[in-house]
């Protein structure tokens, strides 16, 4: 705070904050994109899943075990179970309908309301936050600006998830089933793929990723019942820009939006929150498949 550097207009800390915001967006968007790519379902409740992950993690840390990492795993898995249950009990009934896409969107929107109210019922309307785990809870100072070291951990984990997912989809047997079913469901079913189980599995995985995003972000955000509604819109922007169904697209899109959220206000004072939506409109009109390719790319 001693002086304002004149030459580097962009502080390193702003970049790190932007990338960490992008990382949390990536974790929610990649699950959203994966589910859309394989099941064709645009899951409106994905923001609710993210929020649920944050809440479960907070609850575990403060009530059960005082270990952040265990709480993160519990949070992510709990959300995965909730997601799989929703797919199994509700969304599954809609795959064979004529207007299945819109019915699925409306049903998952119903779950947005249910999850929002359930969270408010259990944890109240207030907002919670926790400190990052002690090992990483220190400030890093670069070029006169500071940020919390935990943000680097979030960025690193997001990159790790991207690599792991890519290896999983392109190099494993289950991944090849996912890709096959994604490109032709009937053919995959005929070749002996248990499509309903695979769908539930993919929905579980996508939900775990959203829960993981929420859990990891618990120390760098205020967790309140409004969180789900906020992040789902950002996630929609990310997946549209990156391309629905594309994982690398979700990563690039998320980093782009994260940086825009962090740096945007410094460059454009008015209209900065409008720019992501403008970008979304333009991408939908010019390249509805997104700036990047399909699943597994």
């Amino acid at each position: 705070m001693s002086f304002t550097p004149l030459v580097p207009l962009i502080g390193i800390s702003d970049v790190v904050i932007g990338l960490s915001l992008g990382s949390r967006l990536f974790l929610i968007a990649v699950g959203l994109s994966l589910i859309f790519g394989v099941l064709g379902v645009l899951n409106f409740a994905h923001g609710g899943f993210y929020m649920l992950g944050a809440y479960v993690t907070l609850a575990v840390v403060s009530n059960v075990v005082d270990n952040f990492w265990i709480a993160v795993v519990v949070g992510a898995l709990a959300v995965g179970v909730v997601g799989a249950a929703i797919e199994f009990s509700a969304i599954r009934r809609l795959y064979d309908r004529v207007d299945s896409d819109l019915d699925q969107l409306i049903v998952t929107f119903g779950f947005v309301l249910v999850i929002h109210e359930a969270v408010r019922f259990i944890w109240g309307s207030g907002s919670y936050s926790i400190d990052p785990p002690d090992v990483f809870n220190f400030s890093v100072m670069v070029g006169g600006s500071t940020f919390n070291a935990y943000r680097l951990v979030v960025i690193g984990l997001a990159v790790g998830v991207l690599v792991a997912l890519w290896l999983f989809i392109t190099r494993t047997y289950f991944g090849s089933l996912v890709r096959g079913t994604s490109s032709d469901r009937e053919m995959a079913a005929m070749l002996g793929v248990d499509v309903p189980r695979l769908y539930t599995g993919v929905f579980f995985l996508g939900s775990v990723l959203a829960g993981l995003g929420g859990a990891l972000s618990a120390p760098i955000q205020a967790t309140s019942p409004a969180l789900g509604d906020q992040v789902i819109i950002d996630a929609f922007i990310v997946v549209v820009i990156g391309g629905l169904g594309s994982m690398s697209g979700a990563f690039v899109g998320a980093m782009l939006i994260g940086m825009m959220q962090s740096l945007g206000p410094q460059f454009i004072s008015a209209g900065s929150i409008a720019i992501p939506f403008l970008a979304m409109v333009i991408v939908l009109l010019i390249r509805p498949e997104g700036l990047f390719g399909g699943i597994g790319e």
Partner: protein
Amino acid sequence: MSATDTGGRVSRFGSAVAEGWTRERFGLLGAVALVLIALAPPFQVYLFTDFLVVALFALGFNLLYGYTGLLSFGHGLFYAGGAYGIAIVLRDLGPVIADVVGAGISPLVTFVLGGVVGLVLVVLVAVPVGWLSVRLEEIYFALITLAFGMLGYSLIIQDPAGLTNGTDGVIVLLGTVDLGGFSLRIGGRRIYYAISAVTVVAATYGVWRVVNSPFGTVCKAIRESPDRAAALGIDVGHHRWMTFIVSAAVVGIAGVLRAGLASVASPGLTHWSTSAIAVIATVIGGATYFYGPIVGAFIFLYIRWAISRFPALEAYWELFFGALLIAVVLFFKQGAVGGLLLLRDRLFGDGDGGGGGGALNGGQATAATDDGAESGDDNARADRGDNS
């Protein structure tokens, strides 16, 4: 997929009530009810006005969803357009108009002019937004309308032109008409109810005429099968665009009324969660029926009010509607109106002798009653011949 549609059902409904219950008598009964409601306690009058406005909002939305199959998550943009149109006219032009027409009558003139400006504003926004949006279908249409709505939300919040007063919104003061010994407070509960009732009934009749015109028939053909409609030489994109504009205009009228009722035009009207109210009301009421959105809006407002009677539940009314929405889409796509018609058929027998009420709704209904209808669904899917 059988060719039943809303028009057929409306005429069938007409024939069913023909014995003693003509459409004229029905209309008269409705008019009497509307007048009687004006005599109710003030809060009930307010609640009913609220219902009328939401009903018109949902009706406009459903013109697009129920009649052309395009699900918009951004109609809040037009709801807000109408509200901000009238609010800004009242704020900025009120004194000017008072100078021209005299202070006594000016509140009424300003109100009417504001309404017209709101409507024109909405159409001016809807023409380009609709033109761009109807290029997309299904999920992508939902996403682009969501983006347009949120774009409007961002612009209203950030207020680059200095017109919308940011997050606080614009206060709406309707004023009092004063002509010698006669004075009339436009914002008064009962007066405003009368204005709203007349406007909503007129707009509903207008929409009904559109739906039952050749234009409306083409819209339904597009909903059932865009490809077949195109093969018949219908310009699908052009019809969707026109429907989008009409739909937005109806929503804009609802927005004008909303501003006066709430006494404020607030940015929340453009937020996607407001657009979602139209989705909830329409789906619960039954999107394939003309009266579906109206019945859905009634259920939405009155159940919310009923829940608010119980302090323990008051804060959680959304939970109820979330669960209801899921249940309706999963198990009974015909919604409340479909349920009522089914009930009527069960109670009074089926005048048409056409195999029970369950089959009322063609493809949609069979799809909703899962299992046994699978082959029918496959056919329907083949009919559409696209969108997978």
